[in-house]
């Protein structure tokens, strides 16, 4: 009787050993694509550090309802207490005017800022993911006078790409990857440094970065570019 009980326990443990990897892989697929839409507010002129933050309002249920933020390193900018000086500094040092397209483009990355901008998405139950990003903002010279008029600062387009670092939590633990995003920035009163409304779309391509052998297999591939 005792012998039979031991056999049952052994079989139970064996089943547990066999099934546990299956369950783990079911929870963590090798690749995961996540698309969503977001909106939020921010003000780079009167707030330091500039933080744009909001909520994910549509798209993949994995992130629907999550909070998001991006943060830009402003350590080299004039203080937020002087928004005019801050704007002038940004416009004079970051904005590149392109006459043929009647536009100005500003790039926020690790070359224009002291450090690369960072982002985070936090879902109350599914977990958190974060990483770095590049943000590209374009203003249009609607009246083609080569001057960025105050009215032309009411609407700007932005786009960018992001890196998903493998420091996520919850469902996103162990994932890393790439993403891209785009949308618009709307400012109802740029002359008085009003908060900016941002809306946009984002697409994330995630993969399981927890597998230790993955790194060694990547390095074994013949390199293309040094």
């Amino acid at each position, binding site marked *: 009787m005792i012998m039979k009980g031991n056999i049952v326990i052994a079989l139970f443990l064996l089943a547990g050993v066999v099934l546990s990897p299956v369950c783990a892989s079911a929870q963590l697929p090798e690749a995961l694509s996540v698309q969503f839409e977001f909106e939020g507010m921010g003000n780079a002129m009167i707030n330091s550090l500039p933080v744009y933050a909001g909520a994910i309002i549509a798209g993949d249920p994995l992130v629907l309802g999550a909070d998001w933020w991006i943060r830009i390193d402003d350590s080299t900018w004039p203080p937020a207490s002087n928004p005019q000086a801050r704007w002038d500094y940004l416009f004079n040092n970051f904005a590149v005017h392109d006459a043929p397209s009647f536009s100005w483009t500003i790039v926020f990355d690790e070359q224009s800022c002291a450090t690369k901008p960072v982002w985070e998405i936090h879902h109350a139950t599914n977990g958190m993911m974060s990483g770095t990003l590049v943000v590209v903002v*374009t203003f249009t010279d609607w009246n083609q006078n080569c001057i960025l008029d105050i009215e032309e600062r009411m*609407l700007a*387009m932005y786009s960018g790409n992001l*890196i998903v670092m493998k420091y996520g939590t919850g469902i996103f633990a162990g994932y890393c990857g*790439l993403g891209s995003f785009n949308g618009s920035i709307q400012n109802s009163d740029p002359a008085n440094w009003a908060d900016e409304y941002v809306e*946009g*779309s984002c697409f994330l391509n995630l993969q399981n970065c927890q597998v230790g052998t993955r790194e060694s297999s990547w390095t074994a591939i013949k390199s293309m570019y040094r």
Partner: protein
Amino acid sequence: MNRKLLLGIAVLCILVFAVASVSAITFRTERFSLNGTGSFMAHPPTFAGQFTGGTLFPGTFWISFDDAGWPADDSGTPQNERLDYVIAHYFHYDATVGGESWDGYFPPSASGEPMPMWRFYTAAGDTLGGSCTQITITINDLNANAIMEASEYAAKVISGNMVAYINYGGGCFRNFCGTGSFSGTLNVVNAQTMEEELYVPSPSLPSGRLYMKDGGCTVGVESSSWGTIKSIYR
């Protein structure tokens, strides 16, 4: 008294005309998703395909890069000279720990080089076109060794800002100009030909945007007309 009355009438007329001219401007927000193919090996490198969703569906598109100065690949050498040039000229490496990657800017910032061009053609006969003020392509250095492996290059992300010119507008966009943005992925689908797939998601949730207007598209518009419009796209 008469002079004051005339002055008042004149100011009133100006205000009425100003409001009328502002309200006469039509604003349109277009959404789109794309799927197409192309290659940086082609001359010029052009990615073309179909709308898969959104307000411009059905229709076709193309986005073309300026390849002036790009060398051709020498089939007699093991390396790809053309792709080597593209990586070296447009991309830079970011060594941020945990986020190691290459970011490529088309055109490079402040270079003055020509921008990529784009055109949209709807099946209904409407056309849109212009340039991309910047297209950004990012490649993940997954093993953080600062060497771009073929498998890393094969799975990229892409995004860009767009300007739409009135002279490329046709059909219902005949008098329109505007601005927009898009984002998606750019993945190698044929390693032999280096053909790549441009995907801007998605049919059910189109992520591309164009904000169009049919006023102020030519030189000489009163910039103050924009000032009276409040939060036009909320």
